[in-house]
């Protein structure tokens, strides 16, 4: 149905989970301490969190920091690869969009010229 976390009581690794809670667009999302932001989002059943110009949703594609599909804004810093950034308690994650009509996109572009996605 959706991506899911392997249950700790069924995990051959013998996990001893502690929760980690981040907010995603203001909504609290809880994952397992040690997961990346992408891992937390997927384990919460989310598959898409970035939207391209055509409005198509994207999430994890390469999973190892090569494709830059999974970019999110963390604590105001844009274009963080969710698959490579460890989730920390209290991280404020904001999803990103390049849909042209979206006002947030314009302000993001204007504010952060150094962002890796800022070559428009």
């Amino acid at each position, binding site marked *: 149905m959706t991506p899911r976390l*392997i249950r700790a009581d069924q995990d051959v*690794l013998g*996990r001893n989970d502690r929760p980690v809670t981040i907010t995603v667009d203001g909504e609290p999302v809880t994952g397992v*301490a040690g997961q990346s932001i992408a891992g937390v989002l997927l384990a919460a059943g989310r598959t898409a969190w970035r939207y391209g110009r055509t409005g198509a949703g*994207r999430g994890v*594609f*390469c999973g190892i920091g090569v*494709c830059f599909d999974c970019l999110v804004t963390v604590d105001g810093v844009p274009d963080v690869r969710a698959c490579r950034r460890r989730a920390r308690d209290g991280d404020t994650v904001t999803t990103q969009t390049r849909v042209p009509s979206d006002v947030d996109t314009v302000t993001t572009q204007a504010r952060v010229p150094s962002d890796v996605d800022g070559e428009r």
Partner: protein
Amino acid sequence: MTRVVVVGAGPAGLSAAATALGAGARVTLIEAAEQPGGQYHRAPVAEFGAGRPEALQHGWRDFAARRDFVLSHPRCRFLPDTSVWALEDPDAAAPAGRPTGPTTGPTTGLVADPGRRRTDRPTHLDVAAPHDPTGPGSTAVRVPVVHVLTGPADGAGRRRQAIEADALVLAVGAHDTMLPFPGWELPGVVTAGAAQALVKGERVAIGDAVVVAGTGPFLLPVAATLLGAGSTLRQVLEANRPGRLAAGWGSRPWQLAGQAGKLPELAEYAATLARHRVPVLLGRTVVAARGDGRVEEVVTARLRPDWSVLPGTERTVAVDAVCVGHGFTPQLELPVAAGCALRTEPDGRSFVAVDADLRTSRPGVYAVGELTGIAGAPAARAEGALAGWLAAGGPDRPAVRALRRRVAAGRRFAARLAAAHPIGAAWPGWLRDDTVVCRCEEVCVGALREAADQDPRVSKLGTRAGMGPCQARICGPTVAALRSFEAARRPDDGARGASPYHRPLAQPIRLGELAASAEPDAEPPEPVPDKENP
């Protein structure tokens, strides 16, 4: 004392660090992740509190012993969470009025868009020296300075350092090659490597009803890993046909003896798939994915040996995830930045050109592991071990000659792998005009076909293919292949032309981080402090 910098702490890099330490060098081991292991030994971080971290791993005991030896060694400095964002040629003359910095570094425009000036060749590429017979101790040509950022991935305000070395071992590995097909941009379509990494590192199963497709033996461990995570494998599809696999793997089986460990491992995966009654189909692949906002079904089809679709063989399979891999692409930006010459296989794939001792065309710079050819972890360990020893100036010994034989065996294994699992030239036949090729900029096949006759640079600027955040890592080789499929095949000019691997900034760096001054190397190479350094 020789200073060896190793970039990448996967099987190859960790072995290189271990033998370099054994040969008496001071070693700096740089790793982008929080812990060593690379993709092969990817494991949950300590925070998971795993009681049996070895449960999903092959060769964990050897790996753990090597890791502990390296990390606890007094002459080793391990830099986790550290990205190399540039390599600087110390012998390149700095332009007047500009402080010494990375060769093609932070001048105007480059930070916001490093891809635009990819034709700006680093000067050292044009003066690439022949192999240095005197080895890494020579001061004739210095190895590149390694510019790193340490801190949370893509964070602001990471610690910036410039690290000098007498020898550099590049062991940065490879990522999945993934050919596009209609619908491959849908959420739920991931690379085979992503599915593997999510289970091993995050304990997340990407879906419950999964198709694994593509070509190569790596599909087997991915499928086995997903089974272990509780997913149902609808099908495992190897695009190449039995005749091709037999021709590649079957002949001269004694040559495989050097890969002891790899074959039993693969047999174990195959047994796991058989036990779960997973259909493994040869000569068939995923040619389209469909769904509303995420993948819901895939279309599979029988393929001819050249990977053209046999009409009428299309079948639809309901899935909630599909994992695809068509072999691996080496991460060539650092070797190219170091000025290392590339070699091109007959099938068009590029790797770093190395001699039998893993020396690149750039004196003092070694390339090991998947950078030199795709042969898996045993070959990568052998290459790393040989290069690390030689980079540290270690003497020739029987053990070194044994390593050379293992490296040569790895080469033969890579050749077999490539012969058994080629990418069929007719794959672009799967594509439609509205199929996305450049995922970042959402450039479709139609636009690229229209621009196929233009100069590559004009085509790139016009379509924006390859100009997004991934900087053509995913689509670059595909766009090049499409161009040659559409137009007459152009002569390959390697790294000197518009190489899809030339990225002056190897990893993103924020302007604020660039503006902040780099800290001096935390561990001065000489006991005497450098008074020149502020």
